[in-house]
């Protein structure tokens, strides 16, 4: 798993968290640009699932494979569920769900990155 992929995904998820945070303060629900940002991050996470699985199968590294696959197989579910759960709550609490989902994705990608590098 290349470092830059993890950094890009974390940057995207953090940008999503910051954006949701601003909307939260303004008391607004998700808007279209934020949706598309999250969609791009989600696409990256699905690519990560495929690429990460292949990389794990081929690598000579000492990686905790079960935990790595555990994170890989669940991280891409967070944003779809988060967005769906937030969508029907048009108050700032719904936007808070998006902040939480983005932070969760950031932490999970960080853990994947750490696991891959044996940290």
């Amino acid at each position, binding site marked *: 798993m290349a470092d830059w992929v993890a950094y890009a995904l974390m940057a995207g998820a953090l940008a999503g968290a910051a954006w949701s945070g601003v909307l939260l303060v303004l008391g607004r629900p998700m808007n279209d640009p934020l949706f598309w940002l999250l969609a791009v991050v989600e696409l990256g996470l699905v690519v990560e699932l495929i690429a990460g699985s292949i990389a794990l199968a081929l690598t000579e590294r000492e990686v905790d494979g*079960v*935990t790595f696959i*555990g*994170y890989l197989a*669940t991280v891409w579910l*967070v944003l779809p*569920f*988060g967005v769906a*759960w*937030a969508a*029907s*709550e048009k*108050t700032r*609490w*719904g936007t*808070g*769900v998006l902040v*939480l*989902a983005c932070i*969760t994705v950031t932490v999970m990608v960080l853990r994947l990155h750490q696991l891959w590098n044996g940290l």
Partner: protein
Amino acid sequence: MTEPATRQGPGRLLVAVYAVFALSASARSGVQIATEFSEARVAYALSGVAAAVYLVATVALVRGGAVARRVAAIAIAVELVGVLVVGTLTVVDGDLFPDETVWSGYGSGYGYVPLVLPILGLAWVWHTRTREGDGTG
């Protein structure tokens, strides 16, 4: 069609936090029990219990009917007792649980959220009860 009170407003975020903990606790205990259960049976069994409690609380808060609210209250109360007992035990005797659980050190590994969450959860179940009788179901 009105949604159950437990998942509206602040409840939206509360349920989301519970879902994150249900996911992380389940994944963690799944890995522990699948790969190294014999090494620390008590700690890993405890991880499994914690995961189950978070799962039950999440589902119950989402459903939000009269029965579900009672289930939620019980699950969250167990969660509170769990984090207090396990937190105290790990602080008093660190060797008792050789590997981390969600509740170790009062949830210090998770920013003490596991300690605050059950208090917020019980307050929320109580708050929605006084506002809307015994819920919508």
